[in-house]
């Protein structure tokens, strides 16, 4: 770092640096920041996510200029955006498809982290902020999906707010407080719009904390060995700015394909029917990115002691997110990277397949074999976190680690 440190070039830069050292901050954290030289493409998803958040905020602010948050007009105003507003068809599609692309990148980012052990010391706070961002993003996306006021919007809002009625004693009061009525209605739509506009800025602030927490210990890397000398690192700019930009361009290709050729393919046809409180769609499906947790919610259809099935489902869903928050203390293995953990590797793969299974099952009707499979997959989700990870940490024999990043990189080149 010292050889790259910021030196103001002109008197004006010196003047600014003495008062508000933004240029120094940018140089040290956005350009010179020493970054492990072996980061692969899985590491570009952080930058892709920043791009996704920016896309959602920009398109969202534009949509809010044309959208009307009122039960009588919301549905029509979205159609108005799609048909009448200049370029509205593309802007609305970008926002809707953008939500799915955002979650695609989020899941890749989370699963990269889980494989390479990035959550382990000293990056626990960095990781926990990330999980909180994930949960807030789900809340924001859910409220956004309510705004077009279609059938799925309305019934999704009904089902999800009903989760809170499971709280013992005060459940019903909390439910009315959230909805602003006895059922989901105009007050609900208005407050969801308000919060849907607010939360992305809260997320942006948390992203700043997330990056701050990243810049204290620095990046983890694919072999999980700490940076030992300047030979292990390269400056963030131009090496990773270019790599991230290239990955963003690749990411934009399917993104653009969806926007231009299949903007509605990720949505549900029922959401093009205006909300009707008297008729429930034949089967309610949340957006795909919420499906794994939705499966866990409805997998609990039996009473456990004094806990009824409804509260049980809610507890299971809350636990599934708490499990993510406490992973750093469940997996206590010293070796970070899954590449050097011969047994963990296979359980990780099983967990990944199981998670995809949970996603698939969330979209299936709650009957027959699907009910059984949902229970099995839900059980395995928890077994992975609360049994497999702690046990593996104790009994697994890791492979020998390379002594440093540079040795690992050069060794590969010679082989």
């Amino acid at each position, binding site marked *: 770092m010292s050889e790259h440190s910021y030196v103001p070039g002109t008197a004006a830069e010196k003047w600014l640096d003495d008062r508000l050292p933004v240029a120094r901050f940018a140089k040290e954290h956005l350009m010179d920041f020493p970054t492990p030289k072996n980061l692969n493409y899985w590491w570009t998803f952080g930058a892709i996510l920043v791009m996704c958040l920016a896309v959602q905020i920009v398109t969202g602010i534009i949509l809010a200029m044309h959208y009307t948050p009122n039960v009588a007009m919301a549905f029509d105003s979205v159609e108005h955006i799609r048909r009448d507003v200049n370029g509205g068809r593309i802007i609305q599609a970008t926002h809707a498809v953008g939500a799915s692309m955002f979650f695609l990148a989020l899941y890749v980012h989370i699963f990269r982290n889980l494989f390479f052990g990035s959550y382990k010391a000293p990056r626990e706070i960095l990781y926990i902020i990330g999980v909180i961002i994930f949960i807030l993003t789900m809340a924001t996306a859910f409220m956004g999906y309510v705004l077009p006021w279609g059938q799925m919007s309305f019934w999704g809002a009904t*089902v999800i707010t009903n989760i809170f009625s499971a709280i013992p004693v005060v459940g019903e009061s909390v439910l009315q407080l959230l909805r*602003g009525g*006895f059922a989901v209605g105009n*007050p609900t739509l208005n407050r969801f719009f308000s919060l849907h506009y607010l939360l992305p800025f809260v997320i942006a602030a948390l992203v700043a904390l997330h990056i701050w927490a990243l810049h204290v210990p620095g990046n983890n890397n694919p072999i999980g060995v700490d940076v030992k000398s300047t030979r292990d690192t390269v400056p963030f700019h131009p090496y990773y700015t270019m790599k991230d930009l290239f990955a963003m361009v690749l990411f934009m290709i399917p993104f653009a394909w969806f926007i231009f050729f299949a903007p509605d393919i990720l949505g549900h046809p029922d959401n093009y029917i205006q909300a009707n*409180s*008297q008729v*429930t769609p034949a089967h309610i499906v949340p957006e795909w990115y919420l499906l794994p947790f939705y499966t866990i919610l409805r997998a609990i*259809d039996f009473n456990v002691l004094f806990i009824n099935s409804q509260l049980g489902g809610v507890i299971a869903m809350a636990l599934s997110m708490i499990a993510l928050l406490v992973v750093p203390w469940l997996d206590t293995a010293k070796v970070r990277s899954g590449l050097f953990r011969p047994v963990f590797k296979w359980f990780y793969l099983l967990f990944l397949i199981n998670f995809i299974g949970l996603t698939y099952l969330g979209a299936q009707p*709650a009957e027959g074999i699907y009910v059984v499979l949902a229970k099995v997959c839900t059980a395995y989700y928890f077994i992975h976190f609360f049994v497999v990870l702690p046990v593996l940490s104790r009994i697994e024999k890791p492979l020998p680690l390379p002594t440093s990043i540079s040795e690992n990189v050069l060794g590969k080149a010679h082989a």
Partner: protein
Amino acid sequence: MAEQAQHSTNRRDFIFVATGAVGAVGAAAVVWPLINQLNPDASTLALASIEFDLSAIPEGQSVTITWRGLPVFVRHRTQAEIDEARAVQIADLKDPQTDEERTKPDHAQWLIMVANCTHLGCVPLGQSGDFDGWFCPCHGSHYDTSGRIRQGPAPTNLVVPPYEFISDTLVQIG
């Protein structure tokens, strides 16, 4: 300093605690209206009670009406449905309730209940499911001809709203 520390409490401590307490009460008094505005407003509460004329519903038919923004089933049950509901062993039920408790005396043919599944609030489909009553397509809860939960994730029977018969064909709900 050391001398001061030996005094267990003095006037300054009292003022400190008292100020803090008054400040906390003041903060709570400001926060409460900011939260309370989320509760159902006067226009929503004004719809709390409705009257409904049953005479147009033939036997074996049902209608869905709106009460407090909630869908409400009004079903004119057949004798077979009533008999089926009354033949059920109470011990078999997840949320034990007799059919008599869910209807009004002398009006057993009328079943009035909030049409939201007690699991997560979907509107169940009528005259379907394994118990000839209602079936919730969202998460697979089956209700019988008395609207009682028989199978699936819903914890309780479909809710019977407060209502009374004003005459043989007119009910007041709420």
